[in-house]
């Protein structure tokens, strides 16, 4: 029991994933600044932001909306992100074997943040937040099927095992899944799914700073917004780790392979940031079409290829 609480609150869960995610978020902002020939923020900037929101700012609750739902939504999102961090990172670091079928649980847990943000936004009774929330849900419908197909393809490629630990072990014995033709297709689709899940620029339709002014998050202020920020940091780390676990052979931490794990995380994050910085925002219909037709097609081709052993 104590060990489980430690897993959830300290080591791969809330604290560790929050800190590493904060550093990754700094990496994101710094690389963005470099792309635009700027200097960019200091290393501790994400933590300054969160501390300010958490300790200094007041919480404003909507007078018309449902206060309890509004305040519970960020907590639920943070819970979903930290539990998925535990379930993904423990097998990834090789600490525990997880349980049979955890890959399916992870898929559902990763949906909780987006879903809870949409519920919180709808509870705030703000029209802009409502538009943001409806876009968030539409986007969720768009990319979730692709993500599910990717999970299915990974399960098929690793010989019908539904345990994350066995998938990693299989990749470390043979070769990484992204090393084959179908694996490369899966990697491309996975990167776009992560991009949409993080709400990064080609798919930041739900927060659309210029027209919806932060969309779903418009009403959140002070500590609830700090929780949303921490959730975003954790999700950034967890999703890059998920790409590394499913397709790039896990994140072993013993000896020199720690360096490789770090390199995997950073290069996936770098890819995400570069896509974010070189693309305009798409419309919601374009995003849905992109996922429904192109990405689903890509993954189905990958599944067919992997059936023939490519």
């Amino acid at each position, binding site marked *: 029991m104590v060990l489980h609480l430690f897993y959830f609150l300290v080591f791969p869960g809330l604290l560790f994933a929050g800190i590493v995610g904060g550093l990754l978020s700094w990496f994101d902002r710094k690389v963005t600044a470099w792309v635009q020939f700027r200097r960019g923020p200091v290393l501790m900037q994400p933590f300054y932001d969160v501390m300010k929101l958490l300790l200094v700012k007041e919480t404003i609750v909507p007078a018309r909306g449902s206060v309890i739902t509004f305040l519970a939504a960020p907590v639920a999102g943070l819970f979903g992100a930290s539990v998925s961090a535990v379930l993904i990172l423990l097998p990834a670091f090789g600490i525990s074997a997880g349980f049979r079928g955890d890959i399916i649980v992870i898929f559902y847990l990763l949906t909780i943040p987006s879903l809870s943000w949409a519920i919180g936004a709808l509870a705030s009774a703000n029209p802009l937040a409502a538009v943001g929330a409806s876009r968030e849900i539409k986007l969720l419908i768009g990319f979730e099927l692709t993500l599910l197909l990717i999970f299915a393809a990974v399960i098929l490629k690793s010989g019908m095992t539904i345990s994350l630990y066995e998938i990693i072990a299989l990749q470390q014995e043979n070769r990484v899944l992204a090393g084959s033709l179908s694996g490369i297709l899966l990697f491309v689709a996975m990167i776009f799914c992560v991009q949409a899940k993080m709400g990064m620029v080609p798919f930041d339709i739900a927060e659309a700073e210029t027209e919806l002014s*932060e969309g779903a998050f418009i009403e959140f202020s002070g500590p609830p917004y700090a929780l949303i920020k921490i959730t975003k940091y954790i999700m950034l780390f967890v999703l890059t780790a998920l790409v590394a676990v499913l397709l790039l052979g896990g994140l072993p931490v013993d000896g020199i392979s720690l360096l490789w794990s770090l390199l995997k995380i950073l290069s996936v994050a770098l890819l995400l940031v570069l896509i974010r910085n070189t693309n305009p925002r798409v419309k919601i219909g374009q995003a849905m079409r992109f996922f429904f037709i192109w990405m689903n097609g890509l993954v189905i081709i990958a599944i067919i290829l992997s059936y023939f052993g490519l």
Partner: protein
Amino acid sequence: MKKSLWLFHFGGASCNNCDIEILACLNPRFDVERFGMLLVGSPRHADVILVNGSINKKGKERLVEVYHQAAKPCLVVAIGACGCTGGIFAEGDTFAGPVDNIIPVDAYIPGCPPKPEAILAGLAKLVEAKFGKKKIPSPDHTKKIDENEIVENEIVTNEKVTLKK
């Protein structure tokens, strides 16, 4: 809070010169993000409200509303001649007073328009005055504004505004 000021830009009836100079602070040459400052889209996230342009009778209601929507503690910076004093509009018919007659202002950045360097220097001085070791007295208000007066002035269009009375 000192190291992470999020800016919310309120443009009154501005001639757009100050707006452009504020946006110039975000570009690669001046880059306010290296001080941890970000331009945010919602007043709920704002730590500093930048007000520029002359405030006319219509804009006054909006300014008061935005001020109440911002999560406190929240600083206000008046930018440009129009924001500080009213500039050439000071005697106009529809002019509703410089910013400090409507909401309490923490810093003034004069100029028509102020250069981006001046805006950065003004923000740096604001941080120094509010959070630094050396206490710089904040500007004197010739006309003291109390919170109740602001509330009376407000026309409640958005009922979500929560007031701490």
